[in-house]
């Protein structure tokens, strides 16, 4: 292999390490913030690293068959693969850690981001735990809910920038000197509301609901399987945040900007979640098919007729 491919492989590894570190630290910070809002001291911010390390060092992990074995592997594969399509930083006109990019990768990403949940659904289905089955059906119904405003928002962006690749949208923002969240505010609002569901924080935590479903799909996954799920969840949180920053907030030119932007964005679902109780499944779906979808449709019409 020549030097260029080695550099890009190093880039992949660096991206995964970065996503893991940022994702897990954010998880710890969220626990700390939750604790402070509930007037507690809270765990240290590095608590999630301990948790994941401890789960990886558990000496047994029971499994119920090969599909359950593959479920968390699917989840982690989907997270890492979607990460590969997200340009993490943009330098002056060029993209660092751009990793894999091609025309239409935004559409590919739409499918890839669902793949992990579907893999988990198959894995959880084999455990035979009734809580998992309920959790999976709830999760998939909720996904049908928030995918609609999310796709509408992306369609608005694609129409406006005449590009179906993430780098294309970033180039558009750099060329016009604005952010898509100001260029296409309705699409941004619709996507932001869809994001509330994507992160599974309250009031949309119907899938994992620990009090009623004993953590739903994850209920039969212990030890290393749970560790893999937590790892993939942390990476995936970073993927979603970085994607939002890239397509709506003009990307980030250095790591500090990236952390600031993703963190501010992350606080939207987190703070909304801390002060909310849980919706029922049908309430949550009705929520997504109400205002967010309407705003998404308006966003598309705005792009088509006004722009």
């Amino acid at each position, binding site marked *: 292999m020549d030097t260029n491919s080695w550099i890009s492989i190093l880039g992949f590894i660096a991206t995964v390490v970065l996503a893991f570190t940022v994702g897990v630290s954010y998880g710890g910070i969220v626990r700390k913030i939750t604790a402070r809002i509930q007037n507690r*001291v*809270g*765990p240290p911010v590095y608590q999630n690293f*301990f948790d994941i390390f*401890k789960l990886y060092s558990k000496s047994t992990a029971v499994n119920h068959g090969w599909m359950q074995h593959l479920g968390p592997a699917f989840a982690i594969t989907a997270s890492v693969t979607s990460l590969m399509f997200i340009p993490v930083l943009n330098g002056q006109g060029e993209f660092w850690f751009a990793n894999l990019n091609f025309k239409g990768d935004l559409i590919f990403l739409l499918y890839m981001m669902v793949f992990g949940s579907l893999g988990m659904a198959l894995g959880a289905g084999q455990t035979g735990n009734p809580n998992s089955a309920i959790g999976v059906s709830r999760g998939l119904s909720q996904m049908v809910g928030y995918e609609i405003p999310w796709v509408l928002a992306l369609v608005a962006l694609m129409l406006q920038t005449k590009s179906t690749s993430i780098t294309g949208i970033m180039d558009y923002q750099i060329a016009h000197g604005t952010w898509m969240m100001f260029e296409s505010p309705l699409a941004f609002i619709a996507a932001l509301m869809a994001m509330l569901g994507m992160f599974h924080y309250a009031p949309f935590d119907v899938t994992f609901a620990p009090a009623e479903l004993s953590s739903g799909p*994850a209920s039969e996954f*212990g030890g290393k399987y749970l560790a893999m799920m937590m790892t993939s969840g942390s990476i995936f949180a970073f993927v979603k945040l970085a994607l939002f920053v890239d397509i709506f907030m003009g990307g980030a030119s250095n790591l500090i900007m990236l952390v600031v932007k993703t963190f501010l964005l992350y606080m939207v679902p987190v703070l909304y979640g801390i002060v909310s109780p849980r919706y029922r499944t049908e309430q949550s779906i009705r929520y997504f098919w109400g205002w967010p979808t309407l705003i998404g449709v308006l966003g598309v019409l705005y792009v088509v007729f006004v722009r």
Partner: protein
Amino acid sequence: MPNDKNSQKIVDIIKNAARKHSLFVLAYGTGCGAIEIPPTMTSRYDAERFGIRGMATPRQADVLLVTGYLATKTLKRVIRAYEQMQDPKYVIGFGSCTINGGMYWDSYNTIKLLDKYIPVDVYINGCMPRPEAVITGFIELQKLIAEGKADGATKYKENLDWYRANQKKVIKNWNMPDYNW
């Protein structure tokens, strides 16, 4: 785990440090002492400071917290839950009832010494122990874990016959599946 020189390997020291700081608790709260668990976990005493966190299912948990008396009927469920947990796992006996039967000493359908049925690592006495005592018990468990001495699960595997015999003595209708834990 300590080796034959009674000292831990470096790998174990690191692993045990992580285990000690991250205890996922499955609270088996059928005894009246369970009323002290909510204040321990919530704002007033905040056990999450020490990395102690409630978990919803046995598969995900490290610590089984048995709060108080166990009827022979519930003992069966506790054994099932305990055997579903993944190694390394620990048990905390909570309240006098798990130590000697407490005020249920002469009851016909509760067990007296929990340690005869599942291996207990730490006892917290009191009827009922206050949240401070509960947290002290957890810190005692953390110390044992750091020293590699919280090896109840290994003891259980080694003396499985003895534990099974004791369990079957009190549970008359023993029809439990075999677990490969």
